[in-house]
């Protein structure tokens, strides 16, 4: 069919435009202002695809987001699955295909930008239809900050789809006047093509703005395609309109069967006639307007079937005047046609003389469901209105009110009035004085004449072809089968049948299904709990929600002041939390293993340095600082002398190690703590929590200074020489500057704090300078160390060096189930202190077990075999059939330059009692023999630390 269904005049499309597009392989033409659906209908195309389960032809049924059938896949400009043809704005070059239920994802990454923006307002109005515009205008005139969002390409809402007049003029004029005033009022933000999809407490509303989709191939790449608006409103006016609901009857799914209101929209907004010969089937007054207006447009409308015995007299007369036969008490009992409707079977409601009407289009109206989604999301209760068969908002919420047809009001003047009232109430609640009473424009539309009837379905037909949920292909029979299976809850029926779970989330089927279930169970809908709506109201692309938090912005990359130097030297990096840390510095041709052996050798035999700036640093000041430290650490810190440094372990209240580090006493009442890289924030929070919530009497202040300092351990037997060269005024001798002491000095002209601590067992100086001077210090050290072959090393070498000395790393050798005693650190657990955090847990039964896992060293029998970290320790020299008893696991494993062999640290049941035992570690599908040793494998006497 290539007939032209575009009417010669009317509609809001640009008749001078000519857009080419392709649908299901057919090249077609449309106009700017069309949706894909209106353009298809203008070309006489109703069928868009076939149904998911039964493969039945399906066509466009609605004109908005409630569309259950016309799902399309966009192929060009970029693959996008599952949009509704009724919401895709047409652009030149669009290539789309109808879907039968399954979308297809692109094979290549999406090049578009997505972003988010916050907006704040006194009054948010959702929906720019008559009620929303009236509310927004009222609020704006009151001086409130207003955000008005609307999901269409232009404001007007339902007015776009009617020919209603306001104050005797086309409603266009009223809309234009309101918009002009809003757009020139300061503090008003108006967003078109923006769907509020989620409403949350505290006035938080999320909206998706489609910013460039309608531009098609011309969309600029630097502008975000979609934007998530995070709107924070003091008051919200929900003016989201209503969705028309169909009536279910046999073969109600054929292309050519549309909602009556949709046909009006296609007529008035797009200048499209949806068919040549139309029948109308309704149970309320609104569809009469479709019949009358379409007939006025010159379309043949032979019959209107009204399920009600009593029909509206005025409207019926108007129909009669236009040659439309109104059949009171009549219904559609079935239809004929394949790709397109050809005939409608009609008959009196309840049976009787049947007839058939030839027509290519059938318009249906079962009433209107207010779009109460946002109201329900906010926790607003819904009430079943038996007179209209719809769920309507119950009592209004403190910060959200509903106006217009979303509130169940369908008369235009009343909708505008409600909008004004809602706007006034909202600004008042937001603390403004409402502007002087706005005049309500008078709509010259027909008032409802006869009460609507609630009709879910036409009984007595072929229920297995009477579709309730068209997208899921669920029929009346299946609903009956569900209730027959013993299901009484609508939620169960939905799950049994899948009703309401498709792309449209039941916008046209939900209430009908509820009604049918109630009917079948003989229940009263008003007494049954309505469905709670959950976000999103309409579907939202994943990428829009991901926004700009992708790629390098996915998560902050934290770097030290020396980062660029590491990069320039070709360092390989390791992610440690959000930090990038240099893992090793491979030279030409080196793999990590070779590089690390070289770096280790330098540290043990010459001099090496690393960037340890990521260590957490906390400044602690106050008369009670020492008392606090005694509670935080397992060991005694109050006895630490000024000028000295102590290693400390921190436990949680459960007695498990949570962090370790050093404590430097700067003065009686002034300490500096270091934490592990990953736990810096946690430890500061931990301190604040205890200080503020448990021990506010302690006079201590804690301040993070992590990034204020660059920290460089200078390590190795030659470190003293290098430091001496750069700090001529400092006596670097062991007597003057002993182990576990600190001194302030000038290094390379930079004020520095130097700590004699060592995480490698070697003579070492940890030099701390203001981070601005970090690079200067580093470069000076490299230069001064050059004669000694100074070598930068990374975290991998650091790990090897410390493991050779048996120093555990919290988080690697511990896992939240390890106590200080397990680590062999009973020496760091004070016996004198009456209490510290975790102490009480040490005496629980489990902590006293002799077979706890303890940190030990492991030496593979074959010194060239590297044990896998994570390898499990067993007693068997082979892998027996499972289950196999596990004694512990390898936590750290390295090849050691200093030892000339591989070694590992492990936690092992009764580990310290097993020293000397031969055990086995799993490696792939084999086991490796190991000997259990003490944790300290290098320089057991500690002879090297003083150089």
């Amino acid at each position, binding site marked *: 069919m290539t007939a032209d269904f575009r009417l010669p005049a009317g509609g809001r499309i640009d008749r001078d435009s000519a857009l080419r597009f392709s649908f299901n392989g057919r090249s077609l033409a449309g106009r700017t202002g069309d949706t894909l659906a209106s353009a298809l209908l203008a070309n006489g195309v109703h069928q868009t695809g076939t149904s998911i389960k039964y493969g039945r032809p399906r066509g466009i049924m609605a004109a908005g987001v409630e569309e259950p059938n016309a799902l399309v896949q966009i192929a060009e400009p970029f693959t996008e699955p599952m949009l509704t043809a009724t919401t895709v704005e047409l652009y030149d070059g669009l290539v789309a295909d109808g879907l039968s239920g399954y979308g297809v994802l692109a094979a290549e990454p999406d090049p578009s930008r997505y972003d988010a923006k916050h907006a704040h307002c006194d009054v948010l109005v959702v929906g720019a239809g008559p009620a929303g515009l009236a509310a927004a205008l009222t609020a704006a005139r009151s001086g409130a900050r207003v955000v008005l969002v609307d999901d269409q390409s232009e404001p007007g809402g339902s007015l776009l789809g009617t020919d209603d007049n306001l104050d005797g003029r086309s409603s266009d004029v009223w809309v234009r006047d309101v918009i002009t005033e809003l757009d020139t009022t300061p503090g008003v933000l108006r967003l078109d093509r923006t769907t509020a999809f989620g409403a*949350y407490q*505290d006035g938080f509303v999320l909206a998706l703005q489609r910013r460039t989709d309608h531009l098609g191939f011309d969309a600029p790449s630097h502008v975000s395609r979609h934007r998530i608006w995070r709107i924070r409103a003091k008051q919200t006016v929900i003016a989201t309109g209503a969705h028309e609901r169909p009536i279910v009857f046999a073969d109600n799914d054929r292309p050519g069967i549309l909602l009556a209101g949709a046909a009006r929209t296609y007529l008035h907004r797009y200048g499209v006639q949806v068919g040549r010969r139309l029948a109308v089937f309704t149970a309320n007054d609104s569809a009469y307007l479709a019949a009358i207006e379409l007939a006025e447009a010159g379309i043949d409308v032979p019959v209107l079937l009204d399920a009600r015995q009593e029909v509206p007299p005025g409207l019926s007369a108007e129909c009669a005047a236009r040659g439309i036969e109104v059949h009171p008490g009549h219904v559609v009992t079935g239809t004929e046609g394949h790709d397109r409707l050809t005939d409608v079977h009609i008959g009196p409601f309840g049976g009787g003389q049947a007839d058939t009407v030839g027509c290519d289009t059938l318009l249906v109206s079962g009433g209107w469901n207010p779009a109460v989604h946002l109201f329900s999301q906010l926790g607003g209760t819904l009430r079943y209105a038996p007179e209209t068969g719809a769920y309507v908002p119950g009592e209004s919420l403190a910060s959200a009110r509903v106006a217009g047809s979303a509130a169940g009001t369908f008369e235009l003047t009343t909708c505008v009035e409600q909008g004004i009232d809602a706007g006034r109430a909202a600004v008042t609640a937001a603390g403004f004085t409402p502007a002087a009473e706005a005049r309500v424009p008078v709509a010259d539309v027909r008032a409802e004449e006869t009460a609507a009837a609630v009709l879910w379905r036409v009984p007595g037909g072929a229920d297995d072809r009477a579709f309730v949920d068209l997208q899921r292909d669920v029929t009346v029979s299946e609903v009956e089968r569900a209730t027959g299976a013993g299901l009484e809850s609508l939620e169960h029926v939905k799950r049994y049948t899948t009703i309401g779970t498709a792309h449209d989330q039941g916008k046209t089927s939900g209430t009908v299904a509820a009604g049918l279930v109630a009917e079948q169970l003989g229940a009263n809908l008003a007494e049954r709990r309505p469905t709670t709506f959950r976000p999103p109201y309409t579907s939202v692309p994943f990428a829009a929600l991901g926004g700009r938090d992708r790629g390098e912005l996915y998560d902050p990359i934290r770097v030290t002041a020396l980062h660029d130097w590491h990069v320039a030297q070709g360092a390989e990096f390791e992610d440690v939390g959000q930090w990038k840390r240099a893992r090793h510095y491979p030279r030409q041709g080196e793999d990590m293993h070779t590089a690390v052996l070289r770096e280790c050798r330098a540290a043990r035999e010459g001099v090496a340095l690393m960037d340890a700036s990521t260590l957490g640093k906390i400044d602690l000041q106050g008369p009670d600082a020492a008392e606090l430290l005694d509670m935080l650490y397992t060991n005694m810190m109050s006895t630490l002398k000024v000028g000295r440094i102590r290693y400390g372990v921190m436990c949680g209240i*459960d007695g498990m190690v949570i962090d370790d580090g050093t404590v430097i006493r700067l003065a009686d009442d002034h300490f500096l703590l270091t934490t592990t890289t990953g736990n810096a924030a946690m430890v500061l929070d931990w301190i*604040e929590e205890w200080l503020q*919530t448990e021990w*506010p009497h302690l006079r201590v202040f804690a301040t993070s200074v992590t990034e204020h300092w660059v920290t460089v351990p200078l390590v190795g037997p030659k470190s003293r020489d290098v430091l001496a060269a750069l700090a001529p005024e400092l006596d670097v001798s062991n007597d003057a500057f002993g182990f576990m002491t600190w001194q302030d000095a000038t290094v390379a002209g930079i004020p520095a704090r130097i700590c004699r601590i060592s995480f490698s067992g070697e003579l070492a100086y940890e030099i701390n300078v203001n981070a601005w001077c970090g690079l200067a210090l580093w470069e000076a050290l490299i230069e001064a160390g050059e004669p000694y072959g100074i070598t930068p090393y990374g975290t991998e070498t650091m790990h090897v060096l410390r493991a050779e000395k048996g120093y555990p790393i919290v988080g690697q050798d511990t896992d939240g189930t390890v106590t200080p005693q397990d680590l062999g650190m009973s020496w760091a657990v004070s016996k004198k202190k009456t209490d510290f955090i975790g*102490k*009480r847990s040490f005496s629980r039964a489990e902590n006293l077990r002799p077979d706890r896992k303890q940190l030990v060293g492991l030496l593979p029998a074959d010194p060239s075999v590297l044990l896998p970290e994570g390898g499990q320790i067993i007693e068997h020299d082979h892998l027996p059939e499972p289950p196999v008893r596990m004694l512990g696991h390898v936590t750290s494993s390295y090849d050691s330059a200093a030892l000339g062999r591989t070694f590992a640290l492990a936690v092992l049941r009764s580990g310290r009692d097993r020293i000397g035992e031969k055990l086995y570690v799993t490696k792939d599908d084999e086991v490796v023999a190991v000997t259990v040793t003490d944790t300290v494998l290098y320089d057991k006497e500690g002879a090297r630390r003083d150089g």
Partner: protein
Amino acid sequence: MQLIPCPWCGPREEVEFHYGGQAHVDYPAEPAALSDEEWAKFVFFRDNPRGPFAERWSHAAGCRRWFNAVRDTRSYELLAVYRPGQERPVTT
């Protein structure tokens, strides 16, 4: 995105806050004097009501101050916020 009223900074988005669980659970004066059962109660057992709950929050991304709040765990509505050391206010 809920707003939580920091007693000092005013309402801020919930992502700025750190949750600290039940309020008014004091660290025992003398842990050593407690039985294992009593100690376990302190370490692991917290109320878990469906309804108003006095709990601790810290304005982690703001002023870094801990405070207490009574929040309804059904509606998530904050019924009161108050400073550490203050009595739990009566909420309705």
